[in-house]
């Protein structure tokens, strides 16, 4: 507008736009350390110019709005990486103690097994010696104790994971409730035309935390945000949340349910998926393998022992107490002999014969399970668990590295830079000063105009 009053109104609008921009800058500075905060940016637009008598006059600046600078694709990638990270971390936390319990170079099961067979070899040189026989029983005792304790340790670890599974389910429910609440807030804000950035930021953070916990699918549609498990069980639909429950099965292991249906198998990733996987695959397989080898070993020794004769010339009885099936053998295997004289070392009934010790010793090299000797099979268990633990550690390092890069990218787009905000402060301050100066100048000019012709 060509009039002085028009100049006033342009300058005034400029002041307002600058104040609005300053508020965005202030908001950013205040939230520099807020996790998940996306920086705000003032959107300044040129007002539509007007044409008067062939001359186009600009009409100043307008604050169009304040937008938050976010990259939703990046958020989705961060969610996906969070699932991998949550899974890898949980695997490392669960598998490292399992590995430590099984793989002891100095006193593990393979060492004790070798010591047992060596004690029989030593006895073979002095088969009538009661102290040597007692040594053999002691070595056998160490071995069964090793089986019992290792089995108990693994069982205890599974129980710990059960506790953690229940905890993860509670954590998931907490996030799910929060996301549903934030969905409602976002909808409400958007329906009244407001800026839902603050709620969106909190929701993004909550979704990322949820992704660490479980491998969820996130779908944004016109109706709102829907979050489900990988197989489609609803967790969040718009403003509604659907809590999960955890409850123990007949063996005492926590199962995950949604509205009464068991959905435990729907979790393959995230912290919960990893905890379930280690509990139900790695640890269960280890327990079963320990049972299998203890059962096969105990029975093989008992069979060989029955072929021989003890110091009294009686036929060999049971050496180890072994159940009728493999299940639970590692935890329960014990020694049936209490008297060292009852070791059936003799092959011909003479007290001084060591012939049956060769049969007993032969169990060491006999293929007992899957074509493997007991020692090789035990070694195989350690290798499998050790490899899984090592691999999960590598995966954890990889996801941490990728997460760091993605976080860095996100910070680059959405993070607050105090340098940038300081520069903005200066810029808007100057603009405010300049607009104020315009008002002052226009005021002086108006004053002159009003006093034209006055004496």
């Amino acid at each position, binding site marked *: 507008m060509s009039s002085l009053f028009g100049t006033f109104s342009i300058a005034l609008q400029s002041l307002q736009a600058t104040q609005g921009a300053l508020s965005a800058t202030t908001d950013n*500075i205040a939230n*520099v*350390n807020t996790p998940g905060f996306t920086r705000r940016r003032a959107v300044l637009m040129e007002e539509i110019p007007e044409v008067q008598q062939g001359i186009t006059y600009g009409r100043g600046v307008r604050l169009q709005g304040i937008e938050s600078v976010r990259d939703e694709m990046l958020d989705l990638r961060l969610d996906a990486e969070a699932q991998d990270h949550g899974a890898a971390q949980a695997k490392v936390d669960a*598998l490292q103690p399992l*590995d*430590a319990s099984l*793989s*002891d*170079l100095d006193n*593990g099961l*393979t*060492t004790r097994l*070798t*010591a047992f067979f*060596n004690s029989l*070899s*030593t006895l*073979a*040189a*002095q*088969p*009538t*010696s009661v102290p040597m026989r007692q040594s053999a029983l002691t070595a056998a005792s160490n071995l069964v104790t090793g089986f019992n304790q290792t089995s108990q340790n693994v069982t205890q670890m599974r129980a710990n994971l059960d506790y953690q599974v229940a905890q993860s389910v509670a954590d998931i429910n907490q996030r799910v409730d929060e996301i549903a609440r934030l969905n409602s807030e976002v909808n409400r804000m958007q329906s009244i035309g407001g800026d839902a950035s603050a709620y969106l930021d909190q929701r993004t953070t909550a979704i990322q935390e949820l992704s660490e916990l479980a491998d969820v699918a996130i779908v944004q549609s016109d109706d709102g945000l829907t979050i489900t498990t990988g197989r489609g069980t609803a967790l969040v639909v718009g403003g509604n949340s659907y809590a999960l429950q955890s409850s123990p099965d007949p063996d005492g292991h926590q199962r995950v349910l949604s509205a009464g249906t068991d959905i435990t198998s729907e979790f393959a990733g995230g912290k919960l998926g990893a905890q379930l996987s280690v509990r139900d695959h790695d640890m269960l397989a280890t327990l079963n393998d320990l049972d299998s080898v203890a059962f096969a070993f105990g029975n093989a020794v008992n069979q060989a022992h029955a072929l021989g004769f003890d110091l009294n010339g009686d036929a060999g009885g049971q050496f180890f107490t072994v159940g009728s099936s493999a299940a639970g053998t590692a935890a329960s295997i014990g020694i049936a002999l209490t008297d060292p004289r009852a070791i059936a070392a*003799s092959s*011909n009934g*003479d*007290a*001084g*014969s*060591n*012939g049956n010790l*060769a049969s007993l010793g032969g169990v060491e090299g006999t293929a007992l399970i899957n074509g493997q000797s007991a*020692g090789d099979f035990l*070694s195989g268990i*350690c*290798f499998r*668990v*050790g*490899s899984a*633990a*090592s691999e999960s*550690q590598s995966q954890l390092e990889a996801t941490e590295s990728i997460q*760091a890069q993605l*976080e*860095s990218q*996100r*910070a*680059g*787009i*959405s*993070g*607050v*830079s*105090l*340098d*940038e*905000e*300081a*520069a903005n*402060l200066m810029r808007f301050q100057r603009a405010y000063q300049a607009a104020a100066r315009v008002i002052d100048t226009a005021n002086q000019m108006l004053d002159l105009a009003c006093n034209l012709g006055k004496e």
Partner: protein
Amino acid sequence: MRIGGDLTSDLVRAIDRTSAQQEKAFQQLSSGRRIEHAADDPAGFSLATHTSSRLADNDEFVSSTGTVQAVMQTADSTLSSVVTALTRAVSLGVEGANGSLSDAQRQALGAEALGIRDTVLSLANSSFNNTYIFGGTKSTSAPFVVDVTGNVAYVGADEVNRVRVGEALSVQAGENGAELFADPTGNVFASLTALYQAFTANDPSAVASATAQVRQAFDHVSTKRVFYGNSMQLLEQNSTFLGNNKVELSQEWDNLVAVDPNDAASQLVNAQQAHDRTIAGAAKVSQLSLLDLLNG
């Protein structure tokens, strides 16, 4: 490309990393081991377990070799005493075959011959660590007894134990008493009994005949000593082999598991220095922003 202003999380990550490396280096130095658990090196752990088993087996073989050597040495020295006794018996026999001896003199020789038989009986019933060494697998009771007819009878076993002293090496733990002292080709007790009886009967030709039998027994026992000599030599060689094997296996173990202390110490020093540098660097990184520098 816009860089987000806050470096703190990057710095914290860097410090965590050097801290973890420092801890790992310290653990390796203090334990002296590169591998503690299978996760450290799954294949290496497997190999180490196998090597450890072979080392334990080697130690057991050393122990068994020692035990069998001790038994054989006892047996061999016993047989040496038997040979000495038989030599004396032969002298008696030669002297007693002389037709010019009186009855009383022959009786005296007979008494000595009986005494020799009793000595040899006692030697044949030798024990080592409460085990009769010439009774075969019936080692808990004396293998030779004097029966009602006054003859010495073998009541031990024919079967003799075998003892494993190496991966693929088992040795027979000795000879049974029947083979040594009651063998048809040279029967120690039968010949000594015959000698005593010949003296008692004052029969010089019987004495001569019995003396020839004692000579055969002497030859037989001397031949049998070769078994013990050979076995002891074999066990000695085995001992040497096991000693070398242990050195090799120990080296294998060290190669797999052990950390060189000098390497570990220098790794720790490097890790500590890296950590100190990271922390110092983090402290120096300017946390100033433009805001701090603007005048009011």
